[in-house]
């Protein structure tokens, strides 16, 4: 009952590990994948990056601020991680690719290594120039088109809420050939340190995730669903089954989980069983009946 097809990926349950969350080694991804339908890796580029110095997170009562800075070992190293994951787990692996660091090269290497899909990250609000990139509709269109011309696996584009019209950008991605949209990345934020009286993070800007951004994620998914017919992976503030179901009703075919893993690494299990119970009590026979239902007049 919890099975969905998302751009050709079969996900059961319709829950995905969000990018940047533990997607570092094959073994941890295999461990986390147990209760999920698919996993997304951390965002990878052509070059190795160490990310920003500590502090890289600041927990809030209602979410998390982070400025990791896209640490990653580079695709030359990471393709081995992909291969190893494919040996350890049958779950689809979506490889997140940094949009500003040779995405074509990285994506094709990832595909060769066995990636089941690529997620193009054009939306990190504090690193890699991705905020600016993700807001430049022309550039996004070009990258998506170029990537599609070389890839045979599905391509998702991960969008930022820090944009005027996310529906329009999603539409552009669809027209350029994207197979799906992932929304949302973190919301651009700043934290001031009351002791140093300076921004807490060395990068000044950081990203807000967790419960606080859930109503924003639902809005973005709702807006995107109005504009495109490709599937949406809804991400942002999913902390329980209710928040997951809201995203599905708003238009998400599957739901990503990130920050909530700080509460419990196996939280997806609970979320999946909550969705199942909701479906039973409301008389839904499949997840696909629920997708985008909030748009029906």
């Amino acid at each position: 009952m919890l099975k969905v097809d998302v751009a050709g990926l079969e996900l059961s349950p319709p829950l995905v590990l969000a990018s940047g969350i533990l997607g570092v080694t094959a073994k941890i991804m295999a461990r986390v994948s147990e209760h999920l339908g698919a996993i997304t890796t951390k965002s990878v580029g052509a070059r190795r990056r160490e990310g920003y110095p500590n502090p890289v997170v600041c927990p809030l009562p209602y979410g998390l601020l982070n400025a990791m800075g896209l640490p990653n070992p580079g695709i030359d190293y990471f393709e081995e991680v992909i291969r190893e994951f494919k040996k350890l787990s049958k779950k689809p692996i979506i490889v997140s690719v940094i949009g500003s660091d040779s995405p074509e090269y990285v994506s094709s290497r990832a595909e060769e290594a066995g990636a089941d899909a690529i997620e193009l990250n054009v939306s990190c609000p504090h690193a890699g120039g991705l905020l600016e990139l993700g807001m430049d509709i022309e550039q996004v269109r070009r990258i998506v088109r170029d990537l599609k011309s070389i890839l045979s696996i599905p391509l998702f584009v991960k969008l930022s809420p820090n944009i005027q019209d996310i529906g329009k950008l999603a539409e552009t991605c669809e027209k350029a050939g994207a197979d799906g949209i992932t929304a949302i990345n973190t919301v651009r934020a700043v934290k001031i340190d009351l002791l140093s009286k300076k921004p807490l993070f060395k990068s000044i800007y950081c990203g807000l995730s967790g419960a606080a951004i859930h109503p924003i994620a639902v809005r973005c998914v709702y807006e995107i669903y109005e504009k495109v017919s490709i599937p949406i992976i809804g991400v942002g503030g999913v902390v329980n089954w209710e928040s997951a179901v809201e995203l599905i009703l708003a238009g998400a075919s599957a739901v990503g989980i990130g920050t909530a893993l700080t509460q419990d690494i196996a939280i997806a299990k609970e979320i999946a069983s909550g969705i199942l119970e909701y479906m039973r009590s409301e008389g839904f026979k499949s997840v696909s009946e629920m997708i985008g239902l909030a748009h029906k007049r």
Partner: protein
Amino acid sequence: MLKKVGRVEEATEVSSGIYLLRISCPLKEPYPGQFVMAQPPGLEEIPLSIAGYSGGELKLIVAAVGETTRALCRMDVGDRLWVRGPLGRGFSYMSRKTAVAVAGGVGIAPLIYLVDARKREGLKTKLVAGFKSRVGGKLIQLLEDLGDVVIATEDGSIGAKGDAVSVASSMITRSSMVFACGPEPMLRKVVDLCMSVGAAVECSLERYIKCGVGICGACLIEGEEVSMRVCADGPVFDGETIVKLSDFDKLALDRSGCKVPLHGGCPSR
């Protein structure tokens, strides 16, 4: 665990380059073996084991090895810093009536709290604290105040001569529960010895900590079929788990997420 403001109440050099910090900062009651992320304003946030906690006062034992630890050790009474914690999983410190605790260098920090917490519960612990060479009188005093302590130095300059494990070995073989913290080569010896004599063992491990809340994947330590987050599944692991961790005493992730050889002992010292 939100970031909280802590206020330095004392910063004393207890041995050359090793400081005792007392910080007033109300935290959720920590377990021995848990750690905090500490950040002097404007500097990095680093992991430090909890060396003591009572009545809203946190004790840390800090080796001044780099910019942040040096800044911490130089703090004056009244200075403030950010403290986030307690984080991670600690020792199962109440599980046995008697136990041996083996420390290497500043690995003494979490064991001080452990021994003290056990004492408060009426449980006995023999502490073997090993150092390279002579340590300061204040540190020795601090350890001796805990009770049953043996000091060992590799050069024999004070206490028993030899590394902590060889000095502790006869106690370990007679014990059913061993706690340890220190460089991984030392911990390996402790674990091997415990496994061979059938003693239960728990070690506090270290890896590079970024998020401290189990989601960034910076601190993974792994084996063929296990992947553990030092910050959230640890930092304390039991012997059964450690023997499955092929990374133990060998590999660690660097800051980019490449798995690289562990140079020297502790990845972070």
